[in-house]
């Protein structure tokens, strides 16, 4: 019955048909519940009376649902769901004519698809997760309209935190209740480092990453420090972001060897002492107590490592971690292009300076 009608219709009013077809075609929407009590999209747009196929995937670690309500009924539905929860229900979908569509509670990693026809009445139809506690922040709106959406920045149907996707205001907020001062040190999640990472920002915008798990300097960079906004504003999953350019990376298995053995020493991190805002790391390599303080050098940008090894009775070897930088040590002898040998006496206190090789640049 339908096809011939459509065909005739098409022959007579081809442009009208296209418009009609667009309205009755299914709008497919893929929505995600994501970390941070939010949906990945806070505004959806569908034409009035359109058929909608909406798929919700829960990529978060807690259960979420999705309820579409009558315009302006979001808070009321959230309150009703909470009442329901208190009475013992676990689907959190209240029986109410204010609830238009619902995807029941889905667990982490689950997906659920529903199909429905959008209301013919234009308007902003809120959607919300009514899992207890989530409703106050986890919501958005389906705009049933063919027109443009209102400005995001003032859209009351969108959580405040999502009205400006660039979060410009947040970046300008102070990091701490005191001014930023260099040097500065953070224990944090650093890229290209073990999970017990340390970042230190020095004067002259020279910075380094030290690994408290492996007890070693990992890399150094210039031109800035780190950005921790992402790390702090989430659950801590995002790593610190390096600001600047890495000029040195230790690519050895481990930069020190003790005695004739070629074995990597056992390491134990003991902590650090802050003096004038510079940390002095304390650690143990086998039974040898080591301290390390790193200060910036400026002529050729780089770092000077001030090291003490107490209680050595065998020589110490230091292995270069990268070729295209300059190394200088105030003690010991370079046995080869890559290896510095220090006697126990020399190793009691020495410095290794690592700078960019400006002639190579």
């Amino acid at each position, binding site marked *: 019955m339908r096809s011939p009608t459509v065909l005739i219709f098409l022959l007579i009013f081809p442009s009208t048909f296209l418009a009609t077809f667009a309205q009755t075609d299914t709008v497919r929407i893929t929505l995600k519940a994501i970390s941070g009590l939010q949906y990945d999209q806070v505004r959806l747009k569908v034409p009035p009376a359109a058929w909608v196929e909406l798929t919700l995937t829960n990529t*978060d670690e807690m259960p979420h649902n999705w309820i579409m309500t009558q315009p302006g009924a979001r808070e009321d539905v959230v309150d009703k769901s909470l009442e329901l929860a208190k009475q013992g229900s676990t689907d959190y979908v209240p029986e109410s004519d204010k609830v238009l569509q619902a995807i029941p509670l889905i667990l982490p990693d689950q997906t659920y698809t529903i199909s429905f026809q959008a209301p013919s009445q234009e308007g902003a139809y809120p959607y919300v997760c009514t899992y207890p506690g989530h409703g106050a922040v986890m919501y958005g709106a389906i705009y049933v309209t063919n027109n443009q959406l209102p400005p995001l920045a003032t859209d009351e149907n969108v959580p405040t935190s999502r009205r400006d996707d660039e979060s410009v205001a947040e970046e300008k907020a102070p990091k701490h209740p005191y001014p930023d001062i260099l040097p500065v040190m*953070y224990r944090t999640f650093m890229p290209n480092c073990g999970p017990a990472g340390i970042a230190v920002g020095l004067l002259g915008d020279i910075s380094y990453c030290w690994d408290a798990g492996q007890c070693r300097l990992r890399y150094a960079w210039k031109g800035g420090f780190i950005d*921790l906004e992402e790390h*702090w504003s989430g659950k801590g*999953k995002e790593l610190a972001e390096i600001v600047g350019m890495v000029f040195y990376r230790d690519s050895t298995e481990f930069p020190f060897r003790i005695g004739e053995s070629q074995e990597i020493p056992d390491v134990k991190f003991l902590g650090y*002492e802050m003096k004038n805002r510079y940390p002095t790391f304390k650690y143990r390599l086998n039974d040898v107590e080591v301290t390390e303080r790193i200060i910036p050098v400026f002529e050729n940008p780089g770092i000077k490592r001030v090291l003490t090894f107490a209680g050595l009775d065998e020589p110490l070897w230091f292995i270069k971690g990268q070729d295209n930088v300059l190394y200088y040590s105030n003690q010991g002898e370079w046995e080869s292009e890559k290896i510095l040998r220090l006697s126990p006496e020399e190793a009691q206190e020495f410095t290794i300076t690592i700078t960019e090789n400006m002639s190579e640049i």
Partner: protein
Amino acid sequence: MIIIMLGLTVAGCTIQPTEQESGIINDQRVDDFYSVENVPLPEGLTAEIGGMDFMPDGRMIVGFHRGEVMTYDPKEKTWELFAEGLHDPLGLLALNNWEVLVMQRPELTRLIDNDNDGEAEEYLTATDDFGLSGNYHEFAYGPAYNGKDLYIALNCASKNAGIWDEVRGEVNMLGEIAGMYSAVPYRGWVLKLREDGVLEPVASGFRSPDGIGFDLEGNLFVTDNQGDWLGTSKLYHIEEGNFYGQISSLVWREGWKGDPEKMPVSTLDSMRTRAAVLFPHNIMSNSPTQPLVIPENSDFGPFAGQFLVGEMDFPRIMRVMLEKVNGKFQGACTSFLDSAGLSIGNHRMVFGPDGSLWVGKSAYVWVGDRGIQRIRYNGGMPMDVLQMNVTPQGFKLTFTRPVDRKMAENPNSYQFDRYYYAYHQKYGSPRMDEQPVAVKQVQVSEDGKEVTLALAEMIPGYVYDLQIDQLTSMKGVELENSRLFYTLNELPNDQTALSVR
């Protein structure tokens, strides 16, 4: 040293404490007995609290999400920076006026202010002898101190992220089960740092144990959050060697072989130690935090010796009433404080020298809040259930005030439901086999403070959910908290087996 004082100009800028963002009205009265106020905080502070304690000299010391540790002088209302740059401190213990232990992600750290200038110079590693996979969900909690050893609790990793290529500690992917997992040593464990510096595994089976504390007798208790293998949130009494239910941590048991996921659930169930108290999900608690015991002789009302437990999702602090039945702890939970000025996100708590309770808020990106609130006891005797004890036939309720005898003697004043929570891999559990239980007999003691209820049936393994309706004190004081949840693991063998605390 950076000093932040009310109205003083420091380092070229004026830093004034501001009211916290939650918009709660100052000095709002909870009722006649407790009041809540907001603590002023320095501007620019992201006040998500991971740990708080008091130093002997009366300064409060607080660890914040972005790694600051700050001291607060309650008299002067000034904040000072004690330490900075820590990785997500989630527990803090003041040893004296110059030494503080802080549990941060990678280690337990001893902060020492050697020159007494109010700022720590030494950050010494007290222990880092546990695994760290880089998974963001591996939070670390504690330490709880019994005067001898320090106890910490380690979170499992989240399925929402993997582990890093470089980890600290041995990797065992058998610990990577569905749900939260333990791929590196002692994730999902409670551990003890002995006086000799050795970190010793104590008990396994935890998922997200964001609360660890001792009672007045030195018994250790830990809370855990609803999720996989936890039908609802719980309070456990910790005993050495025991397994508490979340299965991934089993792979780090000494001599353990095999995949815990391949074991029958009935076997796992028989291995686990049941919680002393269950917090029914959505009704009582969605995310319990620190258990803090009310000190003896404290000026904080009638509940000395009982635990308060923080709650993240509701504007609530809970109260736990424990007893030992057949040698095992079990008991009831109820509200201590609901709304009335208290905000959500109740993460860390500590009693100040004046006996008031300080509550630190947190949210991360879960449900929660920021800031610090202070709860004071205004004196007087609230009408409340002081203790709920099991009897072979039912329960005995002890009230803080004599009850209105006529109301109390009416069996319809007590509505009991009972249900249990399933032990399974699935996230959470509905209330199972939920049934009303009739009250057969009511007996009110001569002094009017004790009400003994005989129930139609008492089945171990169930939560007994009691709603008290229409009951006031003899003098007409309204009952503060009328809903109680008793976790019935054990029925007393006989009356003498009861040792009431």
